[in-house]
């Protein structure tokens, strides 16, 4: 049976950042950590232990898969990872869910604002 992306929601912050980093081209572990730092403007620092623990779990859930590195880095010993179709689906659903949360949050905050007479 095909897994339903909704079953994996909501995502933990580390998982969300990792999936977001892999939404573009395949990356190695260190690249993912740099990308996460860049995405969050340096506010979220992912350590290798947390990263590889998440990657291990995401690969088991088939959201991420290991791929060959770029041709010019053939000699590199680093492992490269990319999003699978399931991972892409889960990420899209999570983004949609977060959009709803943001809309709802904005609406509620607007109603709290004091209005001019």
């Amino acid at each position, binding site marked *: 049976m095909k897994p339903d992306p909704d079953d994996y929601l909501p995502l933990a912050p580390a998982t969300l950042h990792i999936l977001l980093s892999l939404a573009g081209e395949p990356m*190695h*572990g*260190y690249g993912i*950590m740099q990308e996460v730092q860049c995405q969050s403007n340096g506010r979220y*620092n992912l*350590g*290798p*232990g*947390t990263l*590889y*623990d998440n*990657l*291990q779990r995401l690969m088991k859930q088939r959201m991420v898969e*290991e*791929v*060959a*590195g770029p041709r010019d880095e*053939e*000699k*590199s*010993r*680093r*492992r490269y990872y990319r999003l699978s179709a399931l991972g892409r689906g889960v990420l899209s659903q999570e983004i949609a869910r977060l959009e709803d949360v943001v809309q709802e949050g904005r609406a509620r905050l607007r109603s709290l604002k004091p209005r001019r007479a």
Partner: protein
Amino acid sequence: MLRWLYIQLIWLHPAPFRWRFGDDMLDDFDRVPNRAKLRYLADAVRSLARQWLLRPEFRHPEAPAGTLAAAGVPLFQTIETYRPCPAALLQGGLLAILSILLAVLLIAKGGGVARPFFIGTHFSRPSLLPIDRSSVAASDLDTTVKLGPDPFEAWLKLARPYFASLPVLRVLDADRDLTLSPWEIGNAPLALRKLDANHDGKLTSDECGLHIDPNSVPPDWLEPLRWRFMSGHPVLAALDSDHDGEISAGEIEHAAAALKRLDRNHDGYLTADELIPFEMAVRAGLR
């Protein structure tokens, strides 16, 4: 010193995690600036706790305490009658690690006097190209640059006895060149079946090269020892994909695909640096 500590922390991770991600973790640690290294150490401690406490699939199967006690082997003895609470043990362990980290940091700082930073490296590595500096002064047409030995030679030196000691690698490496070629990987199911001494279709740890005299250890220790052997060698851990301590008929059938997972640089070949256990490479100074 911090690097050494980080290696020890990687070492303490469950074997399947260590052989899959250990090299990358160490590589990341080497790349990061010095100011972030302590954060990486703390992250490794957290990862260690997470792997052993929250990832049951990598936990070591414990021998039943009752039978071990019956064999006269005390597992854990307290003077008081109460049993320590697991949370207290965990907190104590973390506190001990933090204390050690603090002590290491103070020692590294040399009692408050910061050590100067030197250009270059304190440790020689096979990737560095040694240059004969005496040739730089007399830079004429006869200048000679002496190259060091092939960095991979050190891996091969380590691989020779390792391949010889592990029957699985011996049968897989048909041409004895200490590298598993795409053909040898594809031929793995046939090669592995040669090790099946009792023709039951699967390979036990004994058939994979573990030699234990059953009379020398308590019977309940045999299973954990077998599991540790099968998970400690990357090639065996990859072949035993369900980590049950033996290579089943199905796992032999899919041996080629399992071995390909060890091919870190995806060049189709499994070389010594991809097959030798992380801890063995660290001990030999190759990591």
